């Protein structure tokens, strides 16, 4: 291998390493939900006191992708989801088997506050 080829290989290796690092980074939990939160004041809530159910599903990623329309891709996927019945004051949180408190906390906010992403 001559020096030019060696430099190209080195560059390629570096690029692959960077891509791998990026792939790892994409699955870090959203920082916003790593802190304690207090639900919005009752008047601003969608359901003031929701009755919450927590469902752990082996098909959690796929179910959440299906009901939110967010696809499962190599770099992102829905990690948890929630759906609610405002009239009945009920909310269900769905996660895959492996999850984290940050995801549960985020979905719990949805149970109180409804849709707030857009």
């Amino acid at each position, binding site marked *: 291998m001559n020096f030019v080829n060696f430099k190209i290989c080195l560059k390629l290796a570096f690029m692959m390493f960077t891509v791998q690092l990026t792939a790892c980074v994409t699955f870090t939990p959203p920082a916003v939900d790593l802190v304690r939160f207090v639900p919005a004041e009752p008047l601003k809530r*969608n359901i003031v006191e929701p009755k919450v159910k927590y469902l752990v599903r082996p098909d959690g990623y796929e*179910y959440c992708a299906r009901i939110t329309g*967010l696809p499962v891709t190599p770099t992102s*996927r829905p990690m948890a989801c929630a759906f609610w019945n405002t*009239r*009945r004051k009920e909310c269900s949180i*769905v996660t895959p088997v492996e999850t984290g408190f940050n995801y549960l906390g985020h*979905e719990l906010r949805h149970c109180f506050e*409804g849709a707030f992403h857009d």
Partner: protein
Amino acid sequence: MTKSRDATPIDAPKRLSLKAGLLVALGGSVFSESSLAENAILSVGFLSNYLPYSYLDAQGRLRGFDVDVVTRLAEVMSVKLDIVTEGLAKLNKKLKVGEVMFIGNQLLATPENRREYDFVKPYASIQMVSVLHEDDNRDLLSLDDFFGKKLGVLTGTGVEEQAKNVIGKAVVSFERIEEALQALAQKKLDAVLEESLIVEYFIERDNLPVKVAAPFAAPVNVGLVVHKANKAMQTQLNQAVQTILNDGSFKIISNRWFGYDVSRARVGHSLSG
């Protein structure tokens, strides 16, 4: 069938639909209006048998959630409505020649419809959901969960086809969704799959002991539709929809028909990435 509904009192009404017809006859553009004149009469097409969105009551009056929303939009735009009720095929023809300025029902934003129409900002979130008996606390989230259970669906729909492909003969088809919901209320079925707002309406209207349970698909893209060339109408309707969402008037209409604000999705998520 044509019915008129006052949104505001008028002094000098201008019939936009008639004007549009004349423009067609003269070979001009149907949709050359840059903006609506105040107190103009706006022809709007509605489906006449589409509960709870637009339907004729026992007295032959057009009622419905979409009718109330469009009436409020007309108030915001300071125009008077001239309501036309037809089937979708005829409404489509009338829209193309400018006899109606928009269709007052939210249509599905399918690729075919997007080629045909321009869509206005949506005002209601609609989603396919499972419906269970009030006493039923099972968590049935996917078609796989329905193996060995009786599932009611509306006949001749994509849902029926998909459900039959997965769970076969356990799928029971109904001509009218009210019949499926009644069967569920009598515990003759395990669940029904149907669009969320239609179900919410029948639960409320018929005081049924059933409940909306889990979503089965993502919220669908819907909206009022205008003719492709009518950007001015689309822009004004977009602004009017935003106004009624902001000023609280949509929420009042929504509460009247469904008991809560249906403008927001009833699902949330955490996304990686």
